């Protein structure tokens, strides 16, 4: 490769250095060059009519993030980024995070004396000057200092006045695993060479090592789709409303899976779940039916269970005529007309020792008072959603709710 260095532009010198690295390591894949600088591809393209390199002209500053995606896909391909002011303006965040993570790429940060032919600055400590706006007002960005501080794998400085040294340094940076950065200048007074090195695993190498030990996916929830249900169930809307700490989210999950998996229906589950510590309102809507569910809200429930006074004030009376209504007489006063009284919270305390099982007691009531879900289906579903050691207690709560609701119904029939 011959050229007249005396007349060569800075661009040609730089690209020639990159091409020289390919000769220094002929077995290595040719690099992909990323830059936002518009005039670069012409230089490359005109040399041979076709680009000898793949070239991405990404948006200013974002080439670093683009290179991260490329690195994830192509573990071994050298990625060479040519950046100028974009590295210390809109690209700064990408710059510092790629360095922090040590993602394998080689950055050439061009000082303004390279890009604009400006007079070399005297601010050696800053390494880099920003060629516009108010250069005398602000302290100049110092990307090499930032990246040294963040322990980039390699930080160096090279000069276009020493093209062979430049190629040599780029080659070294490419060979360095991880994030390498070279400040490129035309200034002869600046120190040239490797300024700092740091040891840290390359990000995607570490990623692959870190994730290699992860368990292969177990056969995911195997099992065929159940046969279509023999019975036709019209849309049925169930709502359980109480407070955070009543275990309402778990109840909703157990109920919807009992209906969907074991009763062969379509189901949806949505809710607002308060936390136990805050004790705010908590609510779950489960809709089930033979046809896929459209609207997931139980605005006019067919089954309504009220666990707290606030819930009763808000939702009593919203149910469809003829709906199944359950309320906890220990919490709700007065009892809404037609409600089956079941001391749900008291039963939860009795069987689990805390109100957290109230949702499970409520499900027992639903099984006792409706045709939509069986106790067996709830039991099966429950076993899949609580830790083994808690299954027995939750089942007791479920069955207590079932028994109490049956007793309440019989009481109502006889009384």
């Amino acid at each position, binding site marked *: 490769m011959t050229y007249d260095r005396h007349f060569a532009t800075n661009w040609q010198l730089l690209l020639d250095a990159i091409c020289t690295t390919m000769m220094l390591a002929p077995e290595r894949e040719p690099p992909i060059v990323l830059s936002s600088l518009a005039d670069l591809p012409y230089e490359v393209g005109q040399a041979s009519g076709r680009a000898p390199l793949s070239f991405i002209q990404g948006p200013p500053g974002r080439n670093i993030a683009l290179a991260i995606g490329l690195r994830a896909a192509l573990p071994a391909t050298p990625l060479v980024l040519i950046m100028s002011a974009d590295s210390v303006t809109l690209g700064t965040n990408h710059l*510092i995070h790629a360095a*922090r993570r*040590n993602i394998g790429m080689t950055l050439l940060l061009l000082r303004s004396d390279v890009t604009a032919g400006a007079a070399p600055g005297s601010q050696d400590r800053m390494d880099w000057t920003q060629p516009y706006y108010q250069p005398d007002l602000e302290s100049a960005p110092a990307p090499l200092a930032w990246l*040294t501080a963040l322990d980039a794998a390699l930080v160096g400085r090279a000069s276009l006045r020493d093209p062979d040294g430049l190629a040599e340094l780029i080659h070294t940076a490419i060979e360095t695993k991880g994030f390498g950065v070279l400040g490129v200048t035309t200034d002869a007074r600046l120190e040239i060479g490797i300024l700092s090195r740091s040891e840290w695993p390359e990000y995607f190498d570490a990623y692959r090592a870190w994730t290699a030990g992860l368990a292969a996916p177990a056969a995911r929830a195997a099992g065929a789709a159940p046969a279509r249900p023999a019975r036709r169930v019209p849309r049925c809307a169930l709502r359980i409303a109480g407070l955070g700490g009543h275990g309402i989210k778990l109840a909703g999950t157990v109920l919807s899976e009992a209906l969907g998996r074991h009763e062969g229906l379509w189901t949806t589950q949505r809710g607002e779940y308060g936390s136990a510590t805050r004790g705010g309102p908590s609510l779950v809507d489960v809709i089930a039916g033979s046809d896929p569910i459209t609207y997931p809200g139980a605005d006019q429930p067919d089954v309504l269970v009220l666990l707290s006074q606030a819930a009763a004030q808000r939702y009593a009376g919203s149910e469809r005529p003829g709906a199944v209504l359950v309320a906890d007489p220990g919490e709700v006063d007065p009892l809404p007309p037609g409600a089956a009284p079941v001391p749900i919270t008291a039963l939860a305390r009795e069987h689990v020792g805390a109100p957290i099982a109230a949702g499970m007691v409520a499900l027992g009531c639903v099984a006792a008072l409706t045709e939509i879900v069986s106790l067996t289906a709830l039991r099966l579903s429950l076993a899949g959603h609580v830790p083994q050691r808690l299954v027995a207690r939750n089942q007791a709560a479920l069955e207590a709710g079932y028994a109490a609701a049956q007793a309440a119904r019989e009481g109502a029939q006889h009384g």
Partner: protein
Amino acid sequence: MTAPAPPTQLQTSFILREYLRPQMLPSTWCPGCGLGIILSSIAQAVHFRGLAKDQVAMVSGIGCTGRMSGYADFNTLHTTHGRAPAFATGLKLARPELTVITVMGDGDAMSIGGNHLVHAMRRNLGLVAVVVNNSVYGLTGGQLSPTTPVGGHTTTARAGSFERPMNLEALARAAGAAFFARATVNHSFGLTKMVERALSGPGFALVEVISNCHVLYGKMNETPEAAGMMMAMDANTVRSNPTLQRRARLPVRLTDAETPAVPAADARPLAGVQTDTRLRRGVIFERRGRVDYSGRYYAQSAPPGDDEAA
């Protein structure tokens, strides 16, 4: 508006009520969250500096920390994610006489806002930034943050993080911040003093506060209790001042010396990785003769001074 008279005695809660918006309380923060302690420390620092509420602006970003500006009775600005330093820059340049305090979480300040933070430090305007570092994204549910330690479990790194965390101290030094201090919520008296000192000087002052997210990070990393997580900060940090380090060895201890350190979350060491993770707390660096550059934007004749004589 006149500044309040310096307090004659520590009527702390009185001060707090003076500087908070009671109608906004209780906060939306989880029980035991260190953010309230940090807000309390900032309010006290403002009080002890004798600053009038009207002369103070608090600018926050998005996240649990972003909510802080809603509770403080200053001129408050709750901005977009990561951009608080940029909003604060505009405000400071428009009203140089205001004391502008920026509060950000670790993800807010260092991840999405990393660029703005670096350039704010470089410009060295008279801003105070309090960065609350709890190693995790709280508001969105416990994802990896740029300060999650190697081995720390998060919802987007269930097997433990392998990423090198951001070294804010080194970055602040390299980017040219005038002042950098680190406190923990377990050392709130020191935190108040650091914020006071940050408020007192020109230039960009950064205070990093190690805080607790026991609800998400703690739960995933075997420290689900607020108190335990905070007390562990005593063992996980070391005073930057050697005199104070010696004094700390004296038997007068208000926190339980037996409290175990937070286990390093079954960290699998990576080859070539330093394992000393104890952070220094205290004032880490303060550049002498630090220059507040904000004046320059009005009188552009002044050449940049030598601000590097640290």
